[in-house]
């Protein structure tokens, strides 16, 4: 975990490459934690990703490097990692739907069975990229709320914002994304 701490400090110091290096480490850490959880839980139990992310964070904060800045960077990386996992999973499902049945390997991410349809995940993912250009902080809130399942108080703590502010970000971002998605669904080239 000291690698992660070093990278978090580097991000805070403004090093350009640090964030890109952090992501795979956080991803790997989440995966390992999930594996440990799974080994101890009964089959088919619900795994709360938000608990995983917090657990991973505690490991870092426990070393005394849990500054507010580091916390924000970490949670953002964790949310991005979860987003990637879910989107990769959704794309794979789409390929299976539209292509032939594949007998072959499945990556571990495909073990995540979500009731949210993959079309919705992919649509939100695309629209979110646009929102991030206009309102990066609102997009961060969506990442954490939608892809990790963090609550408003948890997001407020992670981003060092007032809960009321997080509420407003979420309200606006939600409406904005829905409007964008509906427009793309009804437009002439509605590729979602």
């Amino acid at each position, binding site marked *: 975990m000291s690698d992660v701490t070093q990278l978090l400090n580097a991000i805070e110091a403004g090093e350009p490459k640090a964030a890109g290096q952090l992501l795979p480490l956080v991803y790997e850490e989440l995966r390992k934690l999930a594996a440990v959880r799974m080994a101890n839980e009964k089959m088919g139990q619900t795994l709360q990703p938000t608990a995983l992310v917090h657990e991973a964070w505690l490991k870092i904060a426990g070393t005394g490097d849990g500054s507010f800045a580091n916390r924000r960077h970490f949670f953002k990386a964790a949310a991005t990692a979860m987003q990637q996992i879910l989107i990769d999973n959704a794309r794979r499902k789409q390929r299976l739907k539209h292509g032939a049945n594949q*007998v072959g390997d*499945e990556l*571990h991410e495909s*073990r*995540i*069975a979500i009731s949210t349809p993959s079309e919705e995940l992919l649509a939100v993912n695309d629209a979110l990229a646009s929102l991030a250009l206009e309102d990066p902080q609102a997009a961060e809130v969506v990442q954490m709320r939608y892809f990790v399942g963090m609550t408003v108080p948890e997001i407020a703590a992670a981003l060092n914002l007032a809960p009321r502010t997080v509420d407003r970000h979420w*309200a606006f971002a939600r409406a904005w994304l*829905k409007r964008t998605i509906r427009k793309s669904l009804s437009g002439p080239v509605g590729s979602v």
Partner: protein
Amino acid sequence: MTEREIFLAALEMGTPEERAVYLEEACGRDVTFRRKVEELLKEHFSNDSLLAGSALEGARIAAESSVAETPAQLLGHYKLLEKIGEGGFGEVWMAEQREPVRRRVALKIIKLGMDSRQIVARFEAERQALAMMDHANIAKIFDADDREAAPSRGSDALRLACARANCSCEPCERRPRPQACREARENACALGG
């Protein structure tokens, strides 16, 4: 003011009427702009499921018995989880059936090249033997049509299915009940009744 600011301010209003008055003032003559904000408000108040909360509500991560790097394999509607037996005929795997219903099954995968009539006969005998058993951990075997099969105990039930990789399902076509081969096109044929 940006659409975000107007949207958030409009949400502070108590009634739709007050909101409309506010929008009139804030958006002025810009009809397009006003319509955009109205769309935001409409989405905010609509009760549909899109972005209602977390995508993960109801997420379930299916555990695999071997947590390590072994990739899972798909065979038709079945996801192979763990090999639990082996013999001259082939292998037995614990698998997760995905369609039309999600449940654990024991999947017998037969080696290619074995005589299909012999296999059918052996399975028929096995099925009858199982049908006579009355054990807490063995589910009753029903018809091979998955839609009718109902394990007597939720997810603990084991159902004996047979999957022959790349089978052409010849024996099943000759059987009096065609539904035995409902899954033939998926390269797996569930026998058992």
